[in-house]
């Protein structure tokens, strides 16, 4: 295992310490329990936006804490949901009197831990609402399973709800908005290589040099199927088609096109995928009015990408454009 780490047990703590040292202008970091909180939290009268999940997806979520996006993030161990006490501590820290929204990626562990945290927070009299992001069309949605995973759309949901909270929209409004984003966005991902969890010490799966995995999540797991390596244009087709058809987009729809890197894929390649994805969108009559390209929700050093489409409304577009000031996403301020 080749990593710039000291000991697997110390990865999350030491990384968090480095993050805290580098970004004291934007965030306050506590170590036990581990939380990353916007430097000026709580903002009185503003809904607090809180998310969190396993580490290993950086810049998500800690890199999105700041004005116009998250008020706090709770980092778990690598690929492990954080614990209710982290969430409760962060909830207290960001509650400015208008309640707190939990944005939860749809994983059993995340759901259960956030559920327990919201029980504890409500016991303390804090209004809490939860919205579950489940945008991954690689996984069949079903009542009898854990359902779809939460992947790339999470980034967009955090940005958009964060902007709405800055406008002092109410907790029910912000939660409804977040559900709207979840309803209007879908994602699908693929991997050229696996990744190595420090504690495991070897790649999560072996992928021959001439094969790739289609339909992967963000936890180093293999995808839905393994296919022969294909050119970037074919990959873009394989990801765009299921996303578009699941969303049921119509010609003329405005969309945000997000090509996300899984960690180990250079920007050059992401733009090659973006190029084709934008072309496919145009061919289907979609208007790509907003774009995002880069590694925003990663799976350690995995090589690969995911594509997310979000159907935009004027409201969503304006919220997307609103100022944001975080380590991982910043504009307008």
């Amino acid at each position, binding site marked *: 295992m080749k990593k710039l780490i000291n000991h697997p047990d110390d990865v999350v703590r030491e990384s968090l310490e480095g993050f805290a040292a580098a970004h004291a202008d934007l965030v306050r970091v506590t170590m036990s329990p581990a939380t990353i909180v916007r430097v000026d939290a709580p903002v009185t009268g503003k809904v607090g936006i809180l998310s969190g999940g396993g580490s290993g997806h950086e810049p998500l979520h800690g890199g999105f804490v700041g004005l116009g996006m998250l008020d706090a993030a709770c980092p778990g*161990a690598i690929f492990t*949901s954080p*614990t209710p006490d982290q969430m409760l501590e962060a909830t207290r820290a960001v509650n400015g009197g208008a309640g707190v929204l939990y944005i939860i990626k749809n994983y059993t*562990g995340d759901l259960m831990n956030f559920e*327990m945290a919201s029980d504890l927070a409500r016991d303390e009299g804090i209004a809490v609402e939860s919205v579950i992001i489940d945008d991954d069309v690689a996984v069949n949605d079903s009542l009898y399973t*854990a359902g779809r995973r939460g992947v790339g759309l999470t980034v967009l949901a955090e940005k958009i709800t964060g902007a709405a909270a800055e406008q002092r929209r109410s907790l029910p409004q912000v939660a409804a908005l977040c559900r709207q984003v979840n309803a209007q966005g879908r994602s699908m991902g693929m991997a050229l290589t696996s990744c190595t969890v420090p504690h495991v010490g070897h790649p999560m799966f072996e992928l021959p040099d001439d094969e790739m995995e289609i339909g992967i999540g963000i936890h180093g*797991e293999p995808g839905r199927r393994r296919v022969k390596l294909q050119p970037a244009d074919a990959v873009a087709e394989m990801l765009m088609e299921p996303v578009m058809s699941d969303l049921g987009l119509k010609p003329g729809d405005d969309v945000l096109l997000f090509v996300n890197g899984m960690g180990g894929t250079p920007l050059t390649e992401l733009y090659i995928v973006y190029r084709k994805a934008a072309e496919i969108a145009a061919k289907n009559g979609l208007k790509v009015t907003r774009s995002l390209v880069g590694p925003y929700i990663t799976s350690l050093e995995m090589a690969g990408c995911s594509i997310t489409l979000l159907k935009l409304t004027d409201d969503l577009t304006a919220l997307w454009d609103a100022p944001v000031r975080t380590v991982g996403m910043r504009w307008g301020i």
Partner: protein
Amino acid sequence: MSNTVITLDEVVAWILAYARAISENRAMLTELDAAIGDGDHGANMDRGFKAVSAKLQAGGTDISQVLKTTGMTLLSTVGGASGPLYSTIFLQAAQACAGKTQLTLQDWIVMMDAAAKAVVARGKAAAGDKTMLDALIPAVQALKDAAVAGLSLADALRASAKAAEDGMEATLPLIARKGRASYLGERSAGHIDPGATSTYLLFKTAAAALAQPQVQARKW
């Protein structure tokens, strides 16, 4: 000759023995989870039970309190799916034996039954979904069957360990419907579930710590 009740010291010994078993089998649990999950089950459980061990080093004063401390410590140190679920097991068991200074087989059955039901409620999974429930539910059923059959506490504990083991092994061909393994769909078949394995170890160490003589050790 085996005892007919479980004492405070035995409960502490059981949990400490389980912590050791987790530590020894950490790599194996990790590999199982790497195959169909995300490779953290060994680290998760070990982190939690190391913290529990540290808290229980001084022993305890009350069975329910020891179980509650265990559950609360797991809740704040494990995370993931296993954190809330194992925490639930211990917190439910704690609640079900509140005030008791020793536990009969009947007490144990009530505790484990409450634990299993709470895990179902929390995780919304069912038997056959390829989760820890596939070890937990048969283990509880075996305890009940043993009581009906009039078996001793020790034999009942051994029967539950055996049932948990069989349940764990039966997860091999299953297609996961809950937890991360469910994302793999049919590719999840052919692997034993990591959570069912750690649950088997829980009942195995219970039989070893709470019943004499020890059950035969598995080869891991």
